[in-house]
Structures are given as structure tokens and as C-alpha cells.
């Protein structure tokens, strides 16, 4: 039982990190008032580009993360243009973008032969003596670099949103674009920036899935984690700290599945595979129940295109 718990705890961050990155990206975009339902698509792009960069650019996982980030940011420009400049319904554009990315990634990946190619990927860190401490060493000091970076990143996003000028502008644009505009904030530019920055994080999340956790790429590798992230943001009430908590909770649930089967436990695997999705729905119900009495935490202008127009 002891080893089971240790292995479980040691595996949890690997599952939690991509969810956390995607959720943080989504929070940045949504706090600026843009509902980026594209997150599943951005993760798909990140996952495929991550592997592609790894295979073609000399096998550095960190290069892969950067390239994946740039790729997702570039693809998000289509979405940003559609919803911010052309005011297309954000849900329509988001869902269509997800399917665009699904088609694009499986088309490219299949054509270029990137599927099912196993790579060494991102390795776990070996922190010498620290890593060999019993129990704690395996759980805390044998993770990969991205896990360690995730903590300062969460703090960074939180600081950025709550304590900087940029964050203030971003939130103003998401809460009341008219007032922000009157105060001299460039609404469209701020929203563009938020969507691009958020999508870049989603791209890294996808690349982490392919380069660090599964270490290979297959069609539809993301498997709905983007949608789980959308739900997690609501659960986290648009707060980075709660998002980290939610991601850890989901990491625990998803991480227990391979551990149970490693123990040789007999259970119907397809029902176990349903649990993350069912848990997500449960979490949304919980969020709905607990938010009923209080004011909603959602940015007031979430999903609303900003229209400032001139007529003569």
C-alpha cells in the first residue's frame, strides 16, 4: 500500500501540469472577456507541433515547448481576428476552431509520419541526494523541470493579473470594456494580447502531453482535457490559485487509474476511463450549487464582443 501511495503521489503532477497550464491560459483570455473554447484545439496544435519540433529540431524538449507555444499563438490569431475584430459569436468560432485544429493536426501528423514515434522526451530531474530521500524524494524531488516551473508560473500569472498595470487593463477590458475604452485602454489590442498569451500557454500544455507525459503523438492525443480545463476555470472561479487546486485534484483522479491497473486490480477499465469526465461534470454541479447564492465570479463582459462604432 505504501508504494502504491508514493507512486500515485509521484505521478499526480505529470497529469496535473498540462491541466494547470491550459487552465491558466484560459483564465488570462477569459479575464479579458474572450471565451476561448479553442483550448482543446490549441492543445492539439501544441501536442503535434511539440513532437514535430522534437523530431526535427534535434530533440530538445525545451525547444519543443517554445515552438509549440509559438505555433499555438499563431493559430490563435485566426480565432482572435474572428471574435475580436469581426465579432463572430465566440462559441461558434471556438468550437469550429477546435475541429479545424483536429483536422489540421491529424492531417499534418499523418502526412508527415509523426504519429506513434516514441521519443525519450522530457526527463525527470535527478537532484542527487534530495531525490534519494525515501518517500519525499520520489514525490517532490524527482519530477521534471516543467512541474517545478508550474508553481512560479502560477504565481506569475496571479501577480500579473492582480498586481500589475497590464493585469488591471486586462481585467478592466473583461469587466467593462466601455469604461476601459473611455479610460483610454485599447480594448481590441488588450484582448488580442490576452488571447495570444493564453493560447501560448495552452500550446505548452499540449506539448507537455506529447513530449513529457506520453512521449509520443497520436491523433487526438488531448482527449478532451481542453474541455475539462474549460470546466475547471468555472470551478476555480477564474482564480489562478483555485485553478492550481483543481488541477491537482484532477491530477490525483487521473493518476490513480494507471496505478490501480499496475497493482493488478481487476476492474472494468472503460468505466474507469469515464471518471475524469464524470468528475468534471460533478465539479461543475458543485460550482453551480455553491455560486447560486453569491454573485457570479465570471468576468462581466465574458463572451461579449466589444462594439465601438461610428456612423455618419
Amino acid at each position, binding site marked *: 500500500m505504501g508504494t502504491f501511495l508514493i507512486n500515485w503521489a509521484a505521478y499526480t503532477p505529470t497529469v496535473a501540469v498540462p491541466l494547470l497550464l491550459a487552465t491558466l491560459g484560459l483564465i488570462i483570455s477569459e479575464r479579458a472577456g474572450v471565451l476561448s473554447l479553442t483550448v482543446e484545439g490549441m492543445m492539439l496544435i501544441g501536442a503535434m507541433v511539440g513532437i514535430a519540433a522534437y523530431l526535427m529540431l534535434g530533440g530538445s524538449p525545451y525547444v519543443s515547448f517554445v515552438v509549440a507555444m509559438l505555433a499555438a499563438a499563431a493559430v490563435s490569431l485566426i480565432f482572435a481576428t474572428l471574435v475580436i475584430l469581426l465579432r463572430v459569436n465566440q462559441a461558434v468560432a471556438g468550437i469550429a*476552431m477546435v475541429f479545424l485544429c483536429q483536422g489540421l493536426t491529424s492531417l499534418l501528423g499523418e502526412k508527415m509520419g509523426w504519429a506513434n514515434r516514441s521519443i525519450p522526451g522530457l526527463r525527470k530531474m535527478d537532484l542527487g541526494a534530495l531525490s534519494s530521500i525515501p518517500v519525499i524524494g520520489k514525490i517532490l524531488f524527482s519530477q521534471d523541470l516543467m512541474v517545478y516551473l508550474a508553481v512560479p508560473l502560477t504565481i506569475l500569472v496571479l501577480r500579473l493579473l492582480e498586481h500589475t498595470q497590464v493585469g488591471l487593463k486586462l481585467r478592466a477590458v473583461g469587466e467593462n470594456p466601455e469604461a476601459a475604452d473611455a479610460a483610454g485602454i485599447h480594448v481590441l489590442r488588450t484582448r488580442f494580447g490576452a488571447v495570444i498569451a493564453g493560447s501560448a500557454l495552452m500550446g505548452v500544455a499540449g506539448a507537455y502531453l506529447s513530449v513529457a507525459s506520453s512521449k509520443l503523438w497520436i491523433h487526438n492525443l488531448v482527449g478532451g482535457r481542453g474541455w475539462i480545463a474549460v470546466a475547471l476555470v468555472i470551478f476555480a472561479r477564474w482564480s489562478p490559485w483555485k485553478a492550481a487546486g483543481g488541477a491537482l485534484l484532477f491530477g490525483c483522479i487521473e493518476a490513480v487509474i494507471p496505478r490501480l491497473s499496475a497493482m493488478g486490480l481487476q476492474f472494468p477499465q472503460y468505466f474507469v476511463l469515464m471518471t475524469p469526465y464524470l468528475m468534471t461534470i460533478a465539479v461543475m454541479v458543485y460550482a453551480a450549487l455553491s455560486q447560486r447564492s453569491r454573485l457570479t465570479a465570471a468576468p462581466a463582459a465574458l463572451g461579449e464582443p466589444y462594439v465601438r462604432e461610428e456612423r455618419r
Partner: protein
Amino acid sequence: MRERGNDGGQQAVVGKSAAVSSGHWRAVLEVRQSISGPQKALIVAVMLAVGLAISAIILILNGVQASSIFDELIVQTFFNRESLASVLVSTTPILLVGLAAAIGFRVRFWNIGIEGQIIFGGVGASLIAFYCPGSGALRLPLMGIAALIGGALWVLPTLFLKLRLRVNEIITTLLLNYVAYNFLMYLVYGPWQDPVDRFPHSAKFEAVARLPGIGFGRVDVGLLIGVAMVVVVWWLMQRSRLGFYMRFVEAKTRMAIVVGVPVISTQIAAVLLSGALSGLAGFAIAAGQEYRLTQSFALDFGFTGVVVAFLARNNPILVAVVSFLMGGLAVAGQAMKVFYQVPVAVVGLIQASIVLSIAASEFFIHHRVRFVRAC
């Protein structure tokens, strides 16, 4: 599916300056007060052309010769008896899911969970096919009814959560797709695995549980059911009291509540119908085409349904037209896979490009960009 902030006070919207300014000329954005029919059609046509051009570029990049795209996509697909039959076969489920999505959108319910509802429709139909041996000629109708019920049941939790707790249905329907898919996997790898070939699909339905052909290629009675559903849904939307309520809910939900339209029951009826029609699509595929449950029998139909409803502006007659075209696209995609080794994923990519182009046309319908000299 209309933009929210677009009702009422547009006459009063007078902002100060426009978004972009460059040199002496600057772009000025105007809200159009009204737009003539032909003008609107022209804008949509131009944006459709943009979407088709993007699609053509995608195909050319994948090695399809530019000169043969028209021949491949239009002539070979629609003007060839054999191929036309295949188009009609693939139109059948698309028609049903298109109607399903359209009804949902009519009451502002985003049914993105059509795939899951197809699966449970297929499961319902198979239950009857496998476990009701004595039913004889009643078997097929019973299977159809079971499929309707299966699809409706699978949308029920989402509907409940949306109406009672205002949980976003886009997310719940999507997540339930994954649950349904895993349940299907459990069935075809477990209790319903084919005992004959041990492959992960269900046993073949007996002849009495298969939809008969209508004597044109592989086209089966499912198509007639689909066409009948177009008529039924058209009647419901345009002629019935429910349809009147639905249009009210779609146009102005809040006002509908105020004037006493039974909004909740209208939504319940429409959404259950949407799920039921998706389930029926599962029946049409399982009993009319595959004759069994396969792992992928529902795959990608969810998005296709949304695409069809969106392009058809939730109009059942247009749904039929667009479904036929999408059926053609599916057949052309298969052909291109065989002749040019273009992955089938290209079909989804083309659909998404066209949807995004048409979605962008809304902007040019509602706004006019003019270039004026700055003073």
C-alpha cells in the same frame, strides 16, 4: 446563434472614432441600418467563395491537382449514378443530426453532444435487435422507438443541469460524448463483442432487424425516414404552437418569459426532440448501413450536425439541402483518400473553414467598412 448585442438601440449607437487610422485615409466602421436581400446574398456568396478557396488550397497542398478539384468534388460525386447513391447513403445520418442540432439551436441550446446521443440511439436499437427475438415485423419500428428514447435519455442529464443549475450545456454535452464513447467501447470489447469473429464490434443484426433497401444503390429506408423527419420538423417549427414558442425563445428569451410563453417546457420539448433525432441517426447507421454497432459509427457526426444546422440557419428545408452537399463532401473525401492518399481528416478541415468563413460574413452583413479622408 445571433450576436447578442445586436437588438434594439442600434440607431443610437454613435461612437467617436473608428478602430484603424492610417495616414490621410482612415477606415470607418458603420452599422448598417438595413440591408437588401441581394446585397446580403452577395456577401454570403463572397464569404462562401473565400471558404471554398481555402478548402481548394488545402486540397492542392495535399497533392490534389488543381485542375481536377471541380471534377472530383462535383462531377464525379453528384453526376454519377453509383456515386450519387453513396452520397444519399451518407446524407441519411447527416440529415438527422442536422435537424437535431437545428432544433436545439432554436431554443438556444447548444447540443454539442450529438455523438453521445447517436451512440445511445444505436445502443437502444441494438438492445431490441438482440433481445427481442419474437417481435417479427414489429422489430424495426421498435428499434426506431428505442433509438429515439436512447438519444433523448442521453441528453436528459444535460438538460436538467442547464435548466435547474444553469450549468453550461456546451461543456456537459461534450464531456458526455467521452462517457458515451467509453461505454460503447465497454460494450464492443465486453458483453456485445461479436462472438463470430471476436472483433471489437457487436454481432451482426439479423435480416429482420435491418432497414431494407429502396432499389437505388445501397440507399435504404433510412433516407425516407430522414426526409419524413424533415417534413415533421418543418411542420413543428413553422406550423405548430411549439414552433411558434421556439421562435419566440430563440429571438427574445426574456420577453418570451414576460409575455407568458412556457419557456421551460418549450426548451424541454425541443431539446428532448433534438436528442431523440440524434438517437434516430444512430438507428439509421446501425440498422441501415453497418448492420451492427462499430467502434466509430458515431464518429464526427456531432460536429457535422452543428455545421449543417449553422449553415442552414436552423431551417429544416435548408438542412436537407446542406446535408446533401455534406454527404457529397464525405463521399468525395473517401474518393480522394483512395486516389490521392488525402487523409479523411481533410473533410473536417474543409467543414471548419467554410463555417468560419460564413460566420465571418455576419460581420459584413451588419457592418460596413468605409474609407474616408481624415479631416
